[in-house]
């Protein structure tokens, strides 16, 4: 039973929880606020790129290891892929997490494979991604 619970935490998730990418409190208006009212998790995304083209993104807030790791990867991949690319990926990642497909378009996101077997934690993995799909067109 214990291992069932702990297989949620891929070593890379624990690492990203401790050392997230571009995790910093910023003063600008966030471009996105991802909020889970049930657990109080809440991250803000900031665009610090001079041209506001998502080339230099940062995030800050509170959340569990899973939501923090996944938002960290969101920020990193967002910078690489730009808006169209990240929206496409978010769509695909949500399908992967909800087990609508077994294909994961981005290797880095495979660390969330086991999350798919933890129904109560799906929202953690998708926190920022779902908000992105809702808010940024």
């Amino acid at each position: 039973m214990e291992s069932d619970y702990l297989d949620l935490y891929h070593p890379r998730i624990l690492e990203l929880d401790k050392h997230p990418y571009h995790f910093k409190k910023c003063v600008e208006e966030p471009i996105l606020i991802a909020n889970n009212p049930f657990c109080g998790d809440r991250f803000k995304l900031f665009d610090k790129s001079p041209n506001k083209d998502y080339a230099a993104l940062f995030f800050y807030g509170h959340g569990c290891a899973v939501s923090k790791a996944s938002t960290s990867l969101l920020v990193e991949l967002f910078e690489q892929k730009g808006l169209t690319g990240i929206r496409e990926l978010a769509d695909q990642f949500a399908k992967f997490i909800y087990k609508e497909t077994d294909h994961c378009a981005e290797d880095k996101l495979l660390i969330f494979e086991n999350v798919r077997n933890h129904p109560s934690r799906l929202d953690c993995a998708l926190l920022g991604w779902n908000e992105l799909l809702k808010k940024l067109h």
Partner: protein
Amino acid sequence: MNLKSHFPIFDTHPELVYLDSAATTQKPRNVIKAITDFYESSYSNVSRGMYKLSTDATQKLRDCRQKVATLIGAESSQDIAFTYGATDAINKVAYGYFKPKLTAGHNIIVTTMEHHANLLPWQKLCKESDTELRVVRLLANGNLDLEHLVELMNEHTMLVAVTHISNVLGIVNPIEQINKLAHEKDIPVIIDAAQSISTHTLNAIDLDIDFLVFSGHKMFAPTGIGALYVNPKYQAAFDPHFVGGGMIESASFFETVYQDYPQVLEPGTPNIAGVFGLGAAIDFMDDHSIYSQYDRLELLTQDLRSSLSNYDRIQVLGDSTNSMNIVSFEIEGIHPHDIAYFLAGKNICIRAGHHCAEPLLNSLEISAVARVSLSVYNEHRDIELLLEALKACINYFE
């Protein structure tokens, strides 16, 4: 004395360390049996039947109303209205009693530590009536700042809404003193006893209580049932709000005469099995002198608090000298959800989040906490297992 053997869940799950009783308590055998017996051998609707099943059920519902009255030291069973829970009860008081009486210039006082159930209805009413909502501050140790309460009260104060025990901090508020302070200025008080009904003997008359609410499911009774006590002096001024069958004197298409309190608050078929389960829960509490477990549980609570405080990385909320059954804490660098999830893997049930007290947590600049809560079936072994697991948790997330 340990009451664990009365709760079948621990037969089914002998390993279970259930530390989430503030969310809901487990059910003793006699409560489950009361429900089963009713559905298997004496089920009927109440009130308007002539046959034995129905007259018996009606009588039993009356008996259960009396049991609730006796439990909280009310003068009469007619001071008790059945509701579907504490939230339902507070909203029914808000709309049925206070809303028609509020106007601009009035104010209502809540405290910083209220559960959403005893905050949001008042916030909503205030907005709708242009009434001011005032919030009693906490002292640094988490206790209510009673001087601030006194400052906030004036001749336009219509109500003080206060929880008896904070569902996050475990702090026990001095409701007798709060009642006195408010009554000096003729202000009624509503007491949210959701967390205290299973630990504190309450006497509506001695404590001079105006309004009091609680949920059955946090006191060993079924889900979907709660109770409201209203002091006789406020009963006549209740307006009907939700309306329907079983509460009328006479009805025509265009005019209806409603019955008085408590019937005016009970339209439709009640949760009859829930009422009987609540009655059985009160029997259980009586038979096992639940309130005499107070000292044992207070000790357990203290023990838990001080053990947790021994860890460098653990921050315990609230006042160590005034705390009952509920202990909330943070571990530096580990999110409460990960703590709760890690413990779940070891069969230990605690809860993480804002515990429906988001404004309180905001005021403490915390987004979520881990909460451990106790009840009569808990024993020292549960705390030992918890502490061991927390050690492992800290190592795991290192």
